[in-house]
C-alpha cells in the first residue's frame, strides 16, 4: 500500500520516462495533450466514493498499488498461447499484448478498399495529420482521472478508419491480452475509430488475460460515427479474477447515425465500464445493451452517460445483471437531455438477479432534462430465481442444475437477442454459457439463491 504522495511520485516517474520515448513525442499537439492530461490527473487524483459518479465503486485498490508501465518491456507470445482466446470465423483480428500492438499475432484479413485497420502508435508516427483532428477531441479529460491518465499515457491501440459509403461486413476484432509481470503492471490502450458518412461496421474489443497477477488495464475508445452510419461496438471483459479494468467508450454520433453498444462483463476483479454517447446530430439512434455476470468478490460497475444534444434522437439502455457469491454490481444510468434536444425519446431498463444473500446491486437512474418536449422512462428490478419457475422445470424431469442454468440463460438471452446473428454473437453466447454453467453448478446446495417468495424489491418509475 502506498500513500497519495508516493502514488503521485510513482505516476510522475512513469510519465517522465514515458513522455520522452512515446510514439509522437516530437509532435507538439500530442505533447501538449499528454501534458495537460497528466496535469489534470495530478490535480484531481483518483476518485473516491465521495464523488457522486463513484459512490458505489471504491478504486483505492488501484490507487494504492504502484503500477508500472509495460510498454518498454515487450512480451512475446506464441500463436498457440493465444489460440484458446481467438474467435472462430473472424478474419480480421488485431492483437495487443499489454496494450502494445503485436503485428506478428494479428490477422488483417481482407477488408474493402480504403478501409484502414492498424495500430494507433504506428499511425501517430506515419500519419499524424489523420489522427490530430480526432484524438482527444471527444473525450473529456476532466470527466475522471482515468480518462486523464489514459490520455497522458496513451500511445497505442487500434486505429480504424472507414471511408464514406463503405460497408464492412466482417467484424473488426481487437483482442487485448494482459500477461503476468513480476511487478504490478498497467496499460492504457487507446483506440480511435472513425467511420465516415454512410458507412457500416462492427468493432469488437475483447479483454483477456493469460495468467494471474496484478494488472490494471485502463482503456479509452473514441468512436466517431459520421452522419447516417450504422455501427456496432462490443466490449467483452473476461480477464482473470485479480484484474482491474476501467474502460470508457466515448461515442460521437452524427445526424441519423445508428450506433449499438454491447457490453458483456464476465471477468475481472474490479471493472468499470463507461459508455458515453453524445447524440450530436438530429435523428440519431443509440442502443446500449449490457450484461454483467459476477461471482466471488467481483465488482462490476456499469456507468452510462447518454447525452441528447440534438432533436429527435432516441436512446435505449437495457442492462441485465446476474450476481452470485459476494459479487457487487452497479448500474448508473445518467441521461442528459440538452435544451435543444426536443422530441427526445430515451428509455432505460436495468434488471437484476441476485443469487445469494451476499450479492449486491446498486442501481441508480439519473435524469437531467432541460428540454420540455421529451419522453424519458426508466425502471429497474431486482429479484431472485423464481422458485415457481424452478419447480415447474423440475416437475417435468429437468434436474435442478440444468433447470437453474436454463433460467439463468433465459435471463441472459434478453441481452443476447439484441445482438446480430453471426460469429461475434456465437462467441459471446459460448462465453456466457460457460460462465452460467459454472454458476449453476457451483451454487451452494443450489438452494440458497432460491426463495419461495420473491422478497426482492421491484420498482418501476416513469419520469
Amino acid at each position, binding site marked *: 500500500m502506498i500513500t497519495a504522495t508516493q502514488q503521485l511520485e510513482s505516476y510522475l516517474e512513469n510519465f517522465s520516462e514515458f513522455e520522452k520515448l512515446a510514439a509522437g513525442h516530437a509532435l507538439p499537439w500530442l505533447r501538449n495533450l499528454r501534458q495537460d492530461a497528466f496535469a489534470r490527473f495530478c490535480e484531481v487524483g483518483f476518485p473516491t466514493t465521495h464523488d457522486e459518479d463513484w459512490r458505489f465503486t471504491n478504486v483505492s485498490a488501484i490507487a494504492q498499488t504502484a503500477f508500472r508501465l509495460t510498454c518498454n518491456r515487450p512480451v512475446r507470445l506464441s500463436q498457440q498461447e493465444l489460440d484458446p482466446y481467438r474467435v472462430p470465423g473472424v478474419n480480421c483480428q488485431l492483437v495487443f499484448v499489454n496494450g502494445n500492438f503485436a503485428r506478428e499475432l494479428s490477422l488483417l484479413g481482407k477488408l474493402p478498399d480504403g478501409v484502414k485497420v492498424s495500430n494507433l502508435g504506428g499511425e501517430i508516427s506515419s500519419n499524424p495529420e489523420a489522427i490530430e483532428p480526432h484524438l482527444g477531441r471527444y473525450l473529456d479529460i476532466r470527466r475522471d482521472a482515468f480518462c486523464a491518465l489514459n490520455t497522458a499515457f496513451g500511445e497505442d491501440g487500434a486505429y480504424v478508419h472507414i471511408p464514406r459509403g463503405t460497408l464492412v461486413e466482417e467484424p473488426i476484432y481487437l483482442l487485448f491480452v494482459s500477461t503476468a509481470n513480476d511487478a504490478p503492471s498497467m496499460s492504457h490502450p487507446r483506440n480511435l475509430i472513425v467511420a465516415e458518412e454512410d458507412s457500416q461496421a462492427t468493432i469488437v474489443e475483447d479483454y483477456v488475460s493469460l495468467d494471474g497477477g496484478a494488472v490494471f488495464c485502463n482503456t479509452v475508445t473514441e468512436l466517431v460515427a459520421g452522419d447516417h452510419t450504422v455501427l456496432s461496438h462490443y466490449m467483452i471483459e473476461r480477464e482473470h479474477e485479480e484484474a482491474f479494468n476501467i474502460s470508457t467508450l466515448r461515442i460521437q454520433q452524427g445526424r441519423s447515425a445508428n450506433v449499438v453498444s454491447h457490453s458483456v462483463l464476465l471477468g475481472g476483479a474490479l471493472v468499470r465500464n463507461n459508455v458515453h454517447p453524445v447524440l450530436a446530430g438530429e435523428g440519431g439512434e443509440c442502443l446500449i445493451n449490457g450484461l454483467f455476470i459476477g461471482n466471488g468478490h467481483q465488482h462490476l460497475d456499469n456507468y452510462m452517460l447518454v447525452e441528447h444534444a440534438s432533436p429527435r434522437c432516441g436512446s435505449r439502455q437495457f442492462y441485465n445483471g446476474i450476481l452470485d457469491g459476494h459479487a457487487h454490481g452497479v448500474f448508473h444510468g445518467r441521461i442528459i437531455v440538452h435544451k435543444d434536444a426536443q422530441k427526445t425519446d430515451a428509455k432505460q431498463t436495468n434488471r437484476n438477479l441476485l443469487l445469494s444473500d451476499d450479492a449486491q446491486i446498486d442501481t441508480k437512474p439519473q435524469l437531467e432534462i432541460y428540454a420540455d418536449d421529451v419522453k424519458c422512462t426508466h425502471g429497474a428490478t431486482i429479484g431472485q430465481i*423464481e*422458485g*415457481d*419457475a424452478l*419447480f*415447474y*422445470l*423440475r*416437475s*417435468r*424431469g*429437468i*434436474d*435442478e442444475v*440444468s*433447470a437453474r442454468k*436454463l*433460467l439463468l*440463460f*433465459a*435471463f441472459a*438471452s*434478453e441481452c443476447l437477442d439484441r445482438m446480430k446473428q453471426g460469429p461475434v454473437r456465437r462467441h459471446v453466447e459460448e462465453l456466457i454459457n460457460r460462465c452460467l454453467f459454472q454458476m449453476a453448478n457451483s451454487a451452494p446446495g443450489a438452494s440458497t439463491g432460491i426463495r*419461495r417468495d420473491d422478497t426482492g424489491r421491484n420498482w418501476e418509475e416513469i419520469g
Partner: protein
Amino acid sequence: MSLLEIKNLHVKVDNHEILKGIDLKVNAGEVHSIMGPNGSGKSTLAQVLARRETYAVSAGEVSYNGRDLLAMKPEEAACEGIFMAFQYPVEIPGISNAYFLRSALNAIRKYRGLDEIDAIDFLPLFREKLKLLDMDEKLMNRSVNEGFSGGEKKRNEILQMAVLEPKLSILDETDSGLDIDALRIVAQGVDAMRNPERAIIVVTHYQRLLNYIVPDFVHVLLDGRIVRSGGPELALELEEKGYGSMEAEARHATPA
C-alpha cells in the same frame, strides 16, 4: 400392488396442518377424482405428489410403483412417470415452448437409458400432439406460457402430458377458467391417454369436467380429510347438494 398408495399422510405449511391423514390407493388403469371446496387441501395433495419441497410432510407414507415417493426429488418423480398439470402454469420468458418440451422429454429419456431425440425427430411427434389439442404451432416458438391465454396455458399442460406420457397424471384444477369448448378439447386430450397402464387423478372443484373424463372413483376432500369415497354418482350428488351438506355430515361423524 397399487401404483400409488398413500397412508395416513399429514402435511404442514407454515406450521398449519393442511392434510390431516389421507389414505388413498390408485391402481394402474384407474381414474380417480378428488373433489372438494377451496382450501380443503386438494392442491396441497397434488403438489406433494409432484414433490414440491415447500410442503413439509409431518407423518405418513406414500409409495409409488413400490418406491418411497417422499424420498424423491421433483425431477426424479417426473422421470419415474409422475406428471402434474399445474393449476397455475408458470410463465418462463426466454425459453421457447418447443425447447422446453424437448429438454424435458430428453431428460426423462436419459433417465430411462434411452437415446436423446434431436429437434428434427421431435417435430413429427410434436405436431401430432399439437393437433390432438387443437393448438397453433406458432405457440411453440413463443416463450413458455408467456402471454398465453388461460385456455392456452391449460392446453399447454395437457400437451406436455401427451408428449411425456406419464404413468400417473395429476390434473390440478385443469378445468378452472376454461370455457366449454376449451374444456372439451382438454378433456378429450386427457381421455385419449387413458389405458390400462396409466392412472389419472383429476383434482377439481366442479363436476363438469367429469362429464368428459368419467372417473372410476370419486373422493371428497374436506378440511384435509377424505370424508367420502364412491363411484361417479358421488360427483352428481355433490353437484346437486353442494359441499355444505357433506360438511355438516362430516362434522357430525367426526368425534369432537
